């Protein structure tokens, strides 16, 4: 059971190699096959997450949520897709057409690029880059500019304010977000995600780096613009923020990117702090999936429990609380590792 997906990938590889292609071409073809697999996985989960969020929000607010279409409203997700795809595609007359359209086309690209390095199980990633974690930070920083393009290109005051707020918030919280991984990297000495997961064989890094994990959760939540950090798209003041003007397929791209980012954040947290595929009895990929959904549920819980915070409070919290704590965490981790080494060489450990 543990190797079921790896075996399937092996069969496909053998099948492709049967055409007599060179080894390099087979590798590239396999990347494409894995891309499609990851894409299908992400899309199915995104659709399910939209449904799950509506149900979870319903239960938190003591109402039912969607429950009419099919058992427990499960076919609601099919209806949502059909509705989105059959709407009219509107490009506002006042919009900056080039920027407006480009933003919708590229918003999903950084998200997909993040999934490229995530190990969904032992040996189950598209490409296991050596600089995996740093690569994730680099490509996810692209989202900031794209969100600005969406907000600016719409030529709508709500969109522009939403876009500017989103950029200010995302760049601010990127710093503690980036720093929260440093403790883990100091412990493992590698940026490769599979190595980081393997280092958690005995102890998950949530135990060794609890403060970093909390910083990661808070900053990660702010990075994907979810409540209580959803000022860029606060319905009551900004309609829908930077994607107010988008409809149909283009809106679907933004919506999908939002939930795919939520899932990606949970996947990163699982990989770096929750031991990835490690766990007893069940196959590794199932453990990964379960842990990922626990984190997703946690984020939904937070969103529907806390009220939105004010923008000045949000900025103060980042620069005057989170950033100093994350710097202190690096310092403490460094001293801890050095002290542990020293004790071990002196034979006291």
């Amino acid at each position, binding site marked *: 059971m543990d190797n079921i997906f790896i075996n399937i990938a092996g069969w496909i590889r053998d099948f492709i190699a049967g055409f007599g292609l060179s080894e*390099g071409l087979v590798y*590239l073809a396999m990347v*494409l096959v894995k*891309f499609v697999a990851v894409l299908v996985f992400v899309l199915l989960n995104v659709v399910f997450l939209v449904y799950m969020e509506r149900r979870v929000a319903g239960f938190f607010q003591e109402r039912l949520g969607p429950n009419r279409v099919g058992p427990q409203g499960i076919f609601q997700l099919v209806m949502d897709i059909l509705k989105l*795809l*059959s709407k*009219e*595609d*509107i490009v*506002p*007359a*006042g*919009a900056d057409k080039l920027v407006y359209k480009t933003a*919708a*086309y*590229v*918003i*999903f*690209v950084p998200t*997909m*690029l993040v999934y*490229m390095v995530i190990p969904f199980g032992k040996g189950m990633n*598209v*490409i296991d*880059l*050596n600089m995996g974690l*740093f690569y994730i*930070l680099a490509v996810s920083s692209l989202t900031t500019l794209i969100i600005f393009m969406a907000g*600016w290109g719409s*030529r709508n005051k*709500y969109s*522009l304010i939403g876009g*500017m707020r989103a*950029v*200010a918030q995302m*760049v601010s919280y990127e*710093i503690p977000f980036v*720093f929260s991984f*440093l403790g883990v*990297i*100091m412990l493992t*000495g*590698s*940026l490769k995600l599979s190595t980081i997961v393997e280092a958690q064989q005995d102890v998950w890094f949530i135990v060794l780096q609890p403060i970093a994990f909390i910083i990661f959760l808070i900053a990660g939540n702010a990075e994907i613009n979810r409540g209580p950090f959803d000022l860029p798209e606060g319905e009551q003041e900004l*309609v829908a923020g930077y994607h107010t*003007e988008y409809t*149909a*397929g*283009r809106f*679907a*791209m933004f919506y999908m990117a939002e939930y795919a980012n939520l899932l990606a954040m949970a996947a990163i947290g699982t990989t770096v702090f929750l031991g990835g595929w490690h766990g007893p009895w069940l196959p590794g990929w199932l453990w990964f999936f379960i842990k990922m959904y626990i984190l997703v549920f946690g984020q939904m819980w937070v969103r529907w429990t806390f009220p939105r915070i004010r*923008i*000045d409070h949000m*900025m*103060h919290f980042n*620069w005057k609380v989170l950033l100093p704590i994350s*710097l202190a965490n*690096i310092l403490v981790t*460094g001293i801890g590792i*050095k002290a542990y080494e020293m004790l071990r060489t002196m034979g006291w450990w």
Partner: protein
Amino acid sequence: MLQQYSGLGIYLIAAIIFPFIIVFVALILGPKRPNPEKLTTYECGLDTQGPTWVQFKINYFLYALVFVVFDVETVFLYPWAVKFQALGLFAFIEMIIFIAILVIGLWYAWKEGALEWM
């Protein structure tokens, strides 16, 4: 290495193509009946007053500036963290000095009110 990066290139191209398919499908499935009223900027039923692309306040720029400084710092911190256990105590002290210098910058920004949202 190069093989991985060529894989990355293929993956990137595939990821760029996919949104075009979605938008194209939606264009085919959806109706196309534009009228001037529909194409106006959405502002809850009111007409837009004045220009949209106005001057924003300087706080955004100041936050971006402090961000750039700390973002450059991460570039130094990451290789250091990777090699932390191999490098020994001296490198640790070097990095403490490095961070301390930038913390002075943060303290200055804090003192001068660059981190205030007003």
